[in-house]
């Protein structure tokens, strides 16, 4: 990152003037934390005792046998507290908030995982917490809303624009410019104005620092490839970061193909020609936008990938050809999820299932001597409503109808 927050041509801090001073302070505090080994040590201890770090690296032997190619290893971020890699970033920023002495945190959330993680952190550190969530995502992810509220957070459904992640981000910024003195915005992914992309990637790098050690330990050498799904890009940056130092490891980001690259209903920013350079939400990256610069609607079965922009760090790596980008459609993702559950008894989140789908397409053509790592960024079992709906599961539907009847009868009594 240069002094203005750019990675090559991408990033920066395109912020309203009212936030200038706050960003200055945030950048300074972040720089102090980076230089202070005690801060990282405190972070590691917190993650070991409160979350479930180090998370395992699972050798998926049945999937490996099924495809007959490279050894498949799965990095289990699903076993983090709150069920996703999001906790890594949030707990790190929580420590930062404590150092800055702010009393309130706000966050945007798409799938709800980042909101969940932030609500958890706020409860643990005794902070007030408001979560902005697109109205459409509130409907898609009702159980997460339930838990956020139970942990004491206020969840605000955002009714503007496309009612998804980008609109929640805009609304969180509106809160922040209003309450800038006592509030920290816990940005959820490696996007947004500097220093967020780099800071979030730093906290998430704990994933690849562990995975690097683990794969050498289990497999005896570095993996041929590492796969991650890419929405905003925080889990991808997390699992790539340490391996960026290793030339022989190919890094593959898998974007949300939605109904297909030609359908116009997807969230493919880097692996198709649909996106173009732009500036929104405080940073410069490749956005899905029209010729005037108005953001387009996106679609994915996975709420957490359904986003118009992408981490400026990943866009820089894409431009320098240091990361390869692919996409997986909703249908491919459901097939990959089904296979993973049946073969390994592991339930990846719909977001993570994109990384599995991307890897499954290629793994058979690699030698059995090689290994690949798939980052399982989150667990799918807590998204039972969404996944059961995506599978169009008849017995689940019947259960919901019956439960609905039960509730409506109780209400009438």
């Amino acid at each position, binding site marked *: 990152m240069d002094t203005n927050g750019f990675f090559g041509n991408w990033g920066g801090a*395109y912020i309203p003037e009212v936030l200038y001073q706050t960003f200055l302070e945030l950048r300074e505090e972040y720089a102090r934390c980076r230089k202070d080994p005690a801060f990282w040590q405190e972070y590691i201890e917190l993650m070991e005792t409160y979350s479930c770090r180090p998370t395992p690296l699972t050798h998926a032997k049945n999937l490996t046998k099924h495809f007959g190619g490279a050894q498949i290893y799965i990095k289990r971020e699903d076993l983090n507290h709150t069920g996703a890699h999001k906790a890594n970033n949030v707990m790190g920023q929580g420590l930062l908030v404590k150092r800055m002495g702010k009393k309130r945190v706000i966050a945007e959330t798409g799938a709800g995982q980042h909101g969940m993680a932030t609500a958890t952190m706020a409860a643990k550190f005794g902070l007030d917490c408001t979560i902005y969530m697109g109205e459409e995502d509130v409907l898609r992810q009702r159980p997460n809303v339930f838990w956020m509220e139970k942990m004491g957070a206020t969840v605000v459904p955002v009714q*503007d624009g496309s009612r998804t992640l980008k609109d929640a981000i805009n609304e969180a910024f509106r809160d922040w410019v*209003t309450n800038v003195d006592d509030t920290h915005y816990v940005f959820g992914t490696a996007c947004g104005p500097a220093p967020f992309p780099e800071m979030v990637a730093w906290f998430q790098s704990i994933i690849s620092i562990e995975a690097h050690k683990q794969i050498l330990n289990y497999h005896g050498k570095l993996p041929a490839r590492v796969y991650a799904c890419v929405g905003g890009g925080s889990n991808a940056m997390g699992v790539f970061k340490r391996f960026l130092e290793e030339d022989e490891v190919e890094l593959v980001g898998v974007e949300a193909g939605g109904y297909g690259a030609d359908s116009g209903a997807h969230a493919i920013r880097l692996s198709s020609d649909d996106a173009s350079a732009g500036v929104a939400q405080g940073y410069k990256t490749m956005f899905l936008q029209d010729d005037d610069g108005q953001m387009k609607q996106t679609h994915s079965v996975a709420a957490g990938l359904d986003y118009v922009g992408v981490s400026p760090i990943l866009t820089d790596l894409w431009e320098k050809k240091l990361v390869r980008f692919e996409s997986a459609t909703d249908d491919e993702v459901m097939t990959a999820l089904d296979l993973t559950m049946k073969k390994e008894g592991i339930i990846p989140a719909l977001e993570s299932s994109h990384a599995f789908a991307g890897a499954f397409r290629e793994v058979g053509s690699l030698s059995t001597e090689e290994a690949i790592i798939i980052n399982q960024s989150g667990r799918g079992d807590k998204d039972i409503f969404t996944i059961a709906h995506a599978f169009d599961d008849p017995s689940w539907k019947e259960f919901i109808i019956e439960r609905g009847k039960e509730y409506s009868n109780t209400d009438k009594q």
Partner: protein
Amino acid sequence: MQLEEQLRSKMQEKDILLMTHIVLGYPSLEVNREVIRQMVENGVDCIEMQIPFSEPMADGPVILKANQEALATGISVKDCLIFGAEMAATFDIPFLYMTYYNIIYKYGEESFFKNAAKTGIKGVIVPDLPPEIGQSFLEYADNNHVAPVLIFTPTSTDERMRELARHGRGFIYCVARRGVTGKKSELNEDFHQYLSRCQAATSLPLAVGFGIQDRDDIEALKGRADIAVIGSRTIKLVEAEGAAAVGPFIAGLR
């Protein structure tokens, strides 16, 4: 004549100037045309025309909704620029564009400023482009004699204000409070201190906006600021009572 000069000559005649805000295409260019006519006829000194953007991060609910509904009518940036040119040619007051940086970035900074200069637009306000990363933007603005209007806020330090003033042209837009557009501001002692700091940091005229809603607010700004900015208030008025209500409202402000 350039923006600052134009404003200064008006400041000779009036104890405070009035700037108003229009969201282009909301509810339609036709209504915008009528509203602008009423504003000019009732003494508005300067108008900022917002080119709508899908992600108006610094705007509150009223202008946010106006942006969305304008875009839903299918209005393009080109439509806005043609309309802006028409207004600048029709009325003898300075017109500015207000928009988010992406609109100008996608259009091309150089082409945008050339178009503005050629069509008689006097200034541009962009709320999400700090000067330190807007070098080329500022250069194109200066080369084309279109004023880049920069923004002071209550969180700006004296040092930051001086830095902003170095790059700003035309006037300085002083945001009256933290937050987004459209909510009432308390014009109290803290606010007066803030305005004194603004005055000390720049020799440019000072405009005050965000939450300025009525005659009392404007009265309170006299002697402390040069320009009062009415933004969301007239948009709400047009929504509630139609374009015809704008003239009498503006006439009653001073």
